[in-house]
């Protein structure tokens, strides 16, 4: 199981939790695991999220690997100017 940290504004859509455990070996599986556990998160994930794995910010890639001891943080999708 991978521990996924959500930003505190998502608590309402994750049953009050800020940390959700999912079964996943890639970033894509993390996101689908989150939606499976808390369907209300679908909207925010569709709106765009970036995922930080052990401090490395994955802006959009779904195939990046994730392991059980990875520290995973969800962030709002990054874009620049």
């Amino acid at each position, binding site marked *: 199981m991978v521990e996924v940290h959500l930003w505190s504004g998502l608590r309402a859509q994750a049953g009050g939790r800020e940390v959700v455990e999912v079964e996943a070996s890639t970033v894509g599986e993390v996101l689908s695991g989150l939606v499976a556990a808390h369907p209300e998160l679908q909207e925010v994930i569709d709106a765009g999220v970036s995922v930080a794995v052990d401090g*490395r910010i994955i802006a959009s890639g779904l195939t990046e690997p994730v392991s059980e001891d990875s520290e995973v943080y969800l962030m*709002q999708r990054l874009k620049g100017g």
Partner: protein
Amino acid sequence: MALDEYKPQKGGDQLEQGHAFKYVGTRPDRPDGTDKVTGRARFGADITAPGMLHGAILRSPHAHARIVNIDTSKAEALDGVKAVVTRADFSAAIQPAPGMAGEMWNVLENVMAGDTALYDGHAIAAVAATSALTARDALKLIKVTYEVLPHVTDVDAAMAADAPVIRDGTADKSVPPGLHPNVVRYHQSGHGDVEAGFAEADLVIEDSFTTEATHQGYIEPHACLGTLGGDGKGELWCCTQGHWNVQKICAALLDMETSQLRVTASEIGGGFGGKTTVFIEPVALALSRKANRPVKLVMSRSEVFRATGPTASTSMDIKIGMRKDGTITAAQGVFRAQGGAFPGAPMEFTAMCAFAPYNLANVHQVGYDVMTNRPKQAAYRAPGSPMAAFAVESVIDELCNQLGLDPLEVRLKNASREGTRASYGPKFQRIGLVETIEAAMAHPHYSAPLAPGQGRGISCGFWFNHGGETSVTLALSEDGSAQIMVGTPDIGGSRASMALMAAEVLGIPYENIRVTVADTASLGYNEVSHGSRVTYASGLATIKAAEAAVRELCKRAAAKWGIEEEAVYWEDGYAKPSGPNAGDFEPLHISKITRSMGATGGPINGHFEATPEGAGVSFATHIVDAEVDPETGSTKVVRYTVVQDAGKAIHPTYVEGQFQGGAAQGIGWALNEEYIYGTDGRLQNAGFLDYRIPVASDLPMIDTVIVEVPNPGHPYGVRGVGETSICPPLAAIANAVSAAAGVRMRNLPMSPPRIFEALEAKNG
């Protein structure tokens, strides 16, 4: 530490091996230099086509109004008018949705109003005619019946209970209940216990700040030439930061197959984020389709101000607690930002960047995205970050003043480092904030004496930087020279940097490499040139594409010598046998391999496609000295120093240029630039006379220090540099001006009337 002691540390393959760069880090002339100094370079409006018509757009004079009726009959009857379009000429299939999920509809609604004019300048209809003057005359003949509605342009007023509703149902699920429908997105993040943290502090300062909307201010107005036939095939020439994005959006808005629209990016006269989307391009194509002729559409300067994408205005509340020894014990920020009549104000970046430079056990940030009757915001160089830095760094400055602490020492004490938990959640990898602070402390500027009436301000700043979809193709010519096709429009001299990186890999001179920005039909998908991604991502792809070509070159040499591929290596433009066991062969120059490549296996190209995810964040520290004239409230920037971590400067002169350009925009934003709306909701200053950007006589020379703390995610350690440079100046100048004037300035811009008023209030 002396300024030149920044040795690259571990990280970046080439640096690990102790590689001595031969081309990277040098300062050759840019390849488009001669074209640009002779007037030969072709920008967006520098194009014509046979049979071309000229387009013009009719815009709402009201900040908020229902469009009751549009009568185009007299315009259509005017001699020379060949087409008139309204919203009905665009896709009916695109539907609105809450928050950013409805972004394609938001773009369409912004390109051409539906049933409501949402801001002064909103596009209502457009014409194409045989001359630009005829098109302008035709606009006057279009009769629009409006029902004027109440409007709101201020971010805080738009959240109040009695504010006019811009568009119901736009808020997404993130917004907590009980807020006005104009609040469309919400962000909250942080960790620890801020109340406990404040309790531990010796001094807590709580303060509120505002910044006004500003425009990227590119000197080139948007311009395009579109051709769309009845066969569904189209061509578009436009100045843009991202032509694949333009292709995608235009195709959607016109119900076209994406692949049937070829978009070519012209040279671009500035973008800074404002040209990452579309405004007039779909209109040119719609007009062309209706008239069956090419249509050229160019915006006027007042249209650019009224109807493109300025940045958000903000209203912010900051609370920071500090101990007497300078340790920050807790930090909290609430950030309200308006992005016009659509969701998208970058408040989540404001919130995430605000405290990023600091190692905090207790931090909390909240952001609100609010709609108003203003144009749809677009990205502007590190969107959201400069405003946050202004507010946060001003409060830290006050804390330092009141506790009698040195501002750089306090930044250093609390600085984020590798392993620090960022305010927005994950831990930092290797970063260069400390190195920039130390370089600033060591810089002669920091210890130079100040004259009477002068004040010094410093600030740190942070930006994420980006990777993004990237495709690059490299083709070798028979004479051993190389052509590189990239897909990222060159907004800062990147073609030179690509050529330097390719030269490094191929071992051939920089002058033997030509870099072209290919059109959408000639190369794979590329994300927009934004997020300081080009040198990083197109650079990485260029390196990989060149390495692929090198592998093929070595393979040809191996075949010629009759040895294993693994026994050949590449150095300085030659294939060489890798040891005495491989055989005693003379090194084979690239041109000797390419001249027979047709016969030895075919043309030799290299390509690379990826969405690289190793972009490194970057930090900067700025120092500025300013002088305030107490009789007029006018500020003079006397001295400015930018210190920023570039990871690895591929072409140091262009890195310096980015540092200086970002600082100059920040100076304008801090001292003079703002969107001024009247009580009628109309933009009062839609021109360069009254929207006052810095001119040559306003600024001193801008000194730069390039710090290099390599990014482990790029072969040469590159970090994006284009955006971070605009993050510190708002606060650095506010701190300098507050010191010089003796009064804390909380509202940007700090224009002479505002400073004068603050001095009057202080002096009673």
